[in-house]
């Protein structure tokens, strides 16, 4: 069965964004872009929660994005996407499907289909929900070299201990460290 992995950038103090949604600390350089392109080539489905979806849908189709990051933008704009949201009315970003209910069943169904891996590009509530339902097969957490002091914790919705197994660590030239983990066996 193909796997569903989550990819996220986080500060050393565990925040995915600052108190006013700051993500200016992300370092998008050639090495990061190389990783992003490899990652996007390894998947055929992108999954978002509403907040990340809105952020991405308002950026990647723009001429600026296409000019600055042509390869990543092309991938982001053409890959099949699913956004999970109870409140969103419609999803207009190219090749996006809006799913309003039965998330768990939907994910299990998609994972059983043949194909490439599935990437969850999201944070906050959707990450916690997926983690607690045992839907995530791999965590790719990119620890950025800074302490923010305040912000929104990446794992804030997780209430119980989640034991992980480190499978790989990659250090980037800009000081980011990408940690790969698998959840330690739990009931599915």
């Amino acid at each position, binding site marked *: 069965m193909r796997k569903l992995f989550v990819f996220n950038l986080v500060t050393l*103090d*565990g925040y995915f964004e600052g108190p006013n949604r700051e993500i200016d600390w992300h370092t998008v350089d050639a090495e990061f872009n190389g990783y992003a392109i490899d990652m996007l080539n390894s998947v055929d489905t992108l999954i978002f929660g509403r907040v990340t979806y809105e952020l991405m849908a308002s950026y990647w189709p723009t001429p600026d994005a296409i000019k600055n990051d042509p390869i990543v933008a092309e991938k982001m704009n053409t890959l099949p996407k699913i956004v999970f949201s109870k409140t969103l009315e419609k999803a207009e970003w190219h090749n996006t499907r809006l799913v309003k209910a039965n998330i768990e069943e939907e994910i299990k169904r998609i994972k059983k289909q043949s194909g490439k891996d599935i990437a969850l590009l999201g944070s906050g509530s959707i990450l916690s929900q997926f983690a607690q339902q045992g839907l995530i097969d791999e965590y790719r957490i990119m620890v950025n070299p800074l*302490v923010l*002091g305040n912000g929104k914790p990446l794992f804030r919705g997780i*209430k*119980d201990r*989640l034991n*992980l197994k480190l499978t790989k660590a990659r250090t980037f030239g800009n000081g980011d460290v990408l940690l790969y983990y698998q959840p330690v066996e739990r009931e599915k």
Partner: protein
Amino acid sequence: MQVTLDGFIEGPRGELDWAMKEDEETWNDVLELQRSADTLLLGRVMYPAFEKYWLAAPANPSSTKNEIEYARLADNMQKLVFSKTMEKVEWKTTRIIKNHIAEEILKMKQQPGKDMVLLGGAGLVSTFMNLGLIDEYHLIVNPLVMGGGKPLFKDVKERHKLNLIKTKTFKSGKVVLHYSKGPES
């Protein structure tokens, strides 16, 4: 210091079991750091238990070889405990610092000798960061999400950029992240 992937140094009920699992690579790392220093810095909340445990460790029949070595090194190091209210300590090589933390630390940095290691707790880490006193961070990230507890960087007031110096991964899945203070903090 040991932290979870979500940045906690203790669980919601003070759980430390995840950090304390016997692991030779972690011990080697901890002892190597200990040998590179001649001074240990501790906060008042953490100090009493630290003193009690490590003063007794050499004579405690359940101590491991590594614990006895840690206790021996700690005994020979200068220890500073930061507290406005603490009156006395048992350990002969411990000094209580009541005020003027920054002046005291800056003075000590000028003196010849080995490095100083701040062992915790979280309150002291934040205090030192806010005063700009920390030159390097040596964190051991453990392979778990705790879901709550005591955050390492709980009262840090502003952004601190860091430079990654080195990483090490252990068979246990722990990852050492070693940073120095960045240019703007």
